[in-house]
C-alpha cells in the first residue's frame, strides 16, 4: 500500500512538472501580459522595453524557463504583479487556500447532507411526485448560471431579509488568525463571535457552490440505490423476512454508497472551477477569486502557482478517494 502511494505521489510530481513547462511556454508566447499590467495605459514603447529588460523578459525562452525552474525548486515562484503585488506567489496560494478548502468542505457537506437522503428517498419512492420533482430541481440546479444564483441569494438573504452578510469571509472583527480557516480559528481561540460570524459568511457561497455536487450526488445515489434494490441479495434478505430497517441500513445503503464516494472525489475538481465564479461574486478570498484576478491582471506568477496547485490538489484528492475506496471495498485491493 505504501509503495503504491509513494509511486502515485512521484507521478503527481511528474505531472506538475510537465504542466509547469506547458504553462510557462504558453503564457510567455502571448502578447501583453505582465508588462502591460504593471505599466497600464501610461506605457510607452521605451518604458516597455526598459521593464522587459529589467525583468529579463527579453531573454530567450529557454533561459527564462531554466531560471524559473531553478527558483521554483527552492520554493520561490516569483512575486505577484496583480493579485497582491510584491507578495510571493506561493505565499498567496498558502494564504488563500484555507478559504477555498473551508468553502469546499461546507459545500460538499451541504451536497452530501441533502443529496444522499434525497437520492435514497427518491429511489425508494420511484416515480412518485417527490422523485420527479427532486430530479427536476437537481437538473435546474445544474443549469442555473452560478453568478445569477449567487446574485439572487445575496439579494434575498442579505439585502432584503438582512439575515446573512453579502460577501467576504468575516465582518470587521478583530479576530486572531491561527490556521487561516476562520471558523476553526474562532473555535480554537474561543472567539465564538468570530467563528459564528465566519460561519454566517460561509452559508450563501457554500450553498451556491453546492448546487452542482448536490445534483450529481443526488442522481448517483438514486441510481445506485435503485440498482442495489434490484440485486439478488436484497431480494434474498427480503425473502428471509428481515425487517425493512435492517435491509435498508445494512445492505442497501452500504452497497449503494460505494459509487457515491467516488463521485464525491470527482466533484472536487468541479468545486475548484466552481469556486472561481462563486468566490468572485461573494468576494470570498480564496484561490478561486485569486485565479479570476490573476487572469484579469495577467499575473503570471500567481497563475502558474495556482493552476499547478489546483491540478496537484485534484490529483491528491483523487488519490485519497482511491485509498478510501480500497478501504471500503476489499475487492478493489485484490485487483
Amino acid at each position, binding site marked *: 500500500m505504501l509503495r503504491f502511494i509513494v509511486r502515485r505521489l512521484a507521478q503527481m510530481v511528474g505531472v506538475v512538472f510537465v504542466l509547469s513547462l506547458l504553462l510557462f511556454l504558453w503564457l510567455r508566447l502571448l*502578447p*501583453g*501580459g505582465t508588462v*502591460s*499590467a504593471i*505599466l*497600464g*495605459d*501610461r*506605457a*510607452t*514603447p521605451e518604458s516597455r522595453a526598459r*521593464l522587459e*529588460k*529589467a*525583468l529579463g523578459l527579453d531573454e530567450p525562452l529557454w533561459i527564462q524557463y531554466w531560471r524559473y525552474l531553478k527558483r521554483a*525548486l527552492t*520554493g*520561490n515562484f516569483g*512575486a505577484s*504583479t496583480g*493579485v*497582491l*503585488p*510584491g507578495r510571493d506567489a506561493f505565499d498567496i496560494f*498558502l494564504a488563500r*487556500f*484555507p*478559504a477555498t478548502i*473551508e468553502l469546499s468542505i461546507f459545500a460538499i*457537506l451541504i451536497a452530501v447532507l441533502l443529496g444522499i437522503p434525497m437520492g435514497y428517498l427518491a429511489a425508494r419512492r420511484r416515480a412518485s411526485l417527490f422523485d420527479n420533482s427532486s430530479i427536476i430541481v437537481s437538473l435546474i440546479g445544474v443549469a442555473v448560471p452560478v453568478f445569477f444564483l449567487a*446574485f439572487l441569494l*445575496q439579494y434575498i438573504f*442579505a*439585502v432584503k431579509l438582512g*439575515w*446573512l*452578510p*453579502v*460577501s*467576504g*469571509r468575516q*465582518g470587521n472583527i478583530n479576530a486572531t*488568525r491561527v*490556521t487561516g480557516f*476562520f*471558523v*476553526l480559528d474562532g*473555535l480554537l481561540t474561543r472567539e465564538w463571535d468570530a467563528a459564528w460570524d465566519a*460561519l*454566517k459568511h460561509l452559508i450563501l457561497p457554500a450553498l451556491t457552490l453546492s448546487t452542482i455536487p448536490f445534483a450529481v450526488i443526488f442522481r448517483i445515489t438514486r441510481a445506485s440505490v435503485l440498482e442495489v434494490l434490484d440485486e439478488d441479495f436484497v431480494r434474498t434478505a427480503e425473502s428471509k423476512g428481515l425487517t425493512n430497517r435492517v435491509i435498508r441500513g445494512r445492505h442497501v445503503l452500504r452497497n449503494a454508497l460505494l459509487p457515491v464516494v467516488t463521485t464525491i472525489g470527482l466533484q472536487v475538481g468541479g468545486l475548484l472551477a466552481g469556486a472561481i465564479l462563486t468566490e*468572485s*461574486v*461573494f*468576494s470570498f*478570498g480564496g484561490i478561486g477569486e485569486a485565479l479570476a*484576478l490573476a487572469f*484579469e*491582471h495577467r499575473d503570471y*506568477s500567481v497563475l502558474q502557482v495556482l493552476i499547478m496547485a489546483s491540478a496537484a490538489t485534484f490529483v491528491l484528492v483523487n488519490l485519497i478517494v482511491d485509498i478510501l475506496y480500497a478501504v471500503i471495498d476489499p475487492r478493489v485491493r485484490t485487483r
Partner: protein
Amino acid sequence: MKLTRLKTTAVLAASVSLGLAGCATSDRTTDSGSATGSGSSTASGGAGDTFTFGAAGAPEVFDPYYASDGETFRVTRQIFQGLLGIKPGTADPQPELAESWEPSEDGLTWTFKLRQGVKFTDGEAFNAAAVCYNFERMFDQNEVAQAGPAEYWAYTMLGFKGSETESLYKSCEAKDDSTAVINLTRYTSDFPVMLTLESFSMQSPKALKDGDANNVQKEGDGFKYPAYAMAPVGTGPYKLGKYDEANKTISLVRNDDFWGEKAKTANIVFKIIPDESTRRQELEAGSINAYDLPNPADWKGLEDAGNKVLVRPAFNILYMGLNPEKNSKLQDLKVRKAIYMALNRDQLVATQLPEGAKVATQFMPDTVAGYNSSLQPTKYDVEGAKALLKEAGAEGMTLQFAYPSEVSRPYMPNPQSIADALTADLEAVGIKVEVVTKPWNGGYLDGVDNGLFDAWLLGWTGDYNSANNFIGTFFGSDVNDFHTWKTDFGKTLSKELSDADGIVDEGKRTTAYEALNQKIMEEYLPGLAISHSPPALVVGKGVDGLTASPLTAEMFDTVTVAKS
C-alpha cells in the same frame, strides 16, 4: 525542502479543519433559526466611528512612491501628505506641508517655505532635511525600481541619478529648518504642480532608512518590496492600523497627533470587493458606507434607494487614436476630418455616458489652463463626411478599429457599447470597419503601443492640472501612439509643445496652449477627441462630508457616519 514542508502543513491543516468544521455546522445549525434572524451581518458602522469603503482591488504597496494605481493611492492619501495638496473638489494645488513656494526668475530654483511643528507619526520632525531626504531617495533608485515601480517619477522627472536620460530634478538644499530649495535642470510647467501627485508624498526619513525603503528587488516576473512598503509612516490624518490579507480588509486609525484638524471619524476600513454588483449589494445591506466608480446605469437606482451619488467633475478625455503609419489613407487630413464628421458624438454622449458628460472639442477638459473655449465641436454630418471622403479618394476605405475587453475606465465606462456606436457611425458613411477586440492587459495596450491598430479607443485621466499633462503626454514626443512622426506636422507639433511647456510666464504659456489646442484640432488632427465623462462615487445613508475630487483624490478625514 521548504516547499514540501509548507505543503504538508497546508494539507494537515486542511484535514484538521475537516473534522472540526463538521462539528461547527452540527453545533450551530440547531440554533441558527433564532440567531440568524437578529444578526446584523457585520460590525461596521453602527457606532458611527468607522467609515467602511468598498474598494475594488488590493493596494499594491503602502509606499506611494512605488505605486501607480488608484486603489493604492486612495489608501495612502489618508496616511501621507505632500508639499502641495489639492484644493477639495478641484484639480488645483493648495498649500499642504509647504505653506508657500516661490520660483527664481528662470524657473529653475524653487524655494519652499515649510509648515512648522509637523511630526511624522513615528515622532520624527518634518523639516527641510526631511524634504531633501525624500527627494534624494526618490532620485536615487536602483535599476529595477527605475524600470517599473518608480513609474511616476520616471514619467514626470524623466530620469534618475546616473541614468541615461537627464532628470528634471537636480538637487535639494535645506536652507534652514523650514526652507527647502529644489533645483531643476530645466523649466517645465509641470513643476511644482506635479508635487500634488500622491507619489511625491513626504515620508518619515527614519522609517525609510530603517525599513530599507529603496531596496526593491526583481523576483520572477514581479518585484519584491522592502519591509517599509508595508509599514508606511507619514504626516496625514490617519495611520495604517492593520492589513488583514486573509479577510481582505485594511484598517486605518486616526492620527491623534495630526497637525491640522483631526479626522472626524476614528477608523476607516477598506474592504476589498472586486465584483461591482457585490459592492452595490453590500452598500444596500448597509455593510459598507461607500464605494468608487458605480456603473452610471446604477446611479438612479442607488439614489432612489436613498444613497448619494457624488459626481466628480470630468477631468479626463476619451479619444479615438489614428495610426497613419498602419493605414496610409489616414495620412490625409481630409480623411481624418471626414471620420470625425461621421461620428454622432451627441448621440453617443447622450446614450452611453452619464449626465454631465460632454462632447470634446479638444484633448483636455475645460478646467485646465490652456483650454480653448472658442473651439466648437466638429459637427455630425454624414453627407459632408461622404463628400470629403470622395474628395480624398477614400470612399469605401477599410478601417481596422480596436477596442479593449475586460476593462472599464472612468472615461470609458463601457468600451464595447461605445465602440459599437462609433462603428455604426463609420459604417454609415461607407467605411468598411474591421472590428478588433483584445483584452486590456492581454494585448490591447500592447497593441496600441506597438502600432497594431488603424484606429483605437483610449483615454486619459489627468494626473494634475497642467496642459502639458494632457497634450504634452499625447504628442510631446513625435514617437508616440499616434505615430505623428509619419505625418508632416509631427516634428513641428512636438517642438511647439515643448516650447510652450518652457514658457515661464503663466499668462503667455496659457495663450500658447490655447493656440496650440486650436492648431491640433483644426490643422493637425492627429487623433479624434471624443468626450469627457464624469466618474462618480457613491456614499450610503448617513454619510456626510465627502467631497468628490476630479483627480479621484478624496480625503476621508472630513467624513462623518451617522450612528444607526
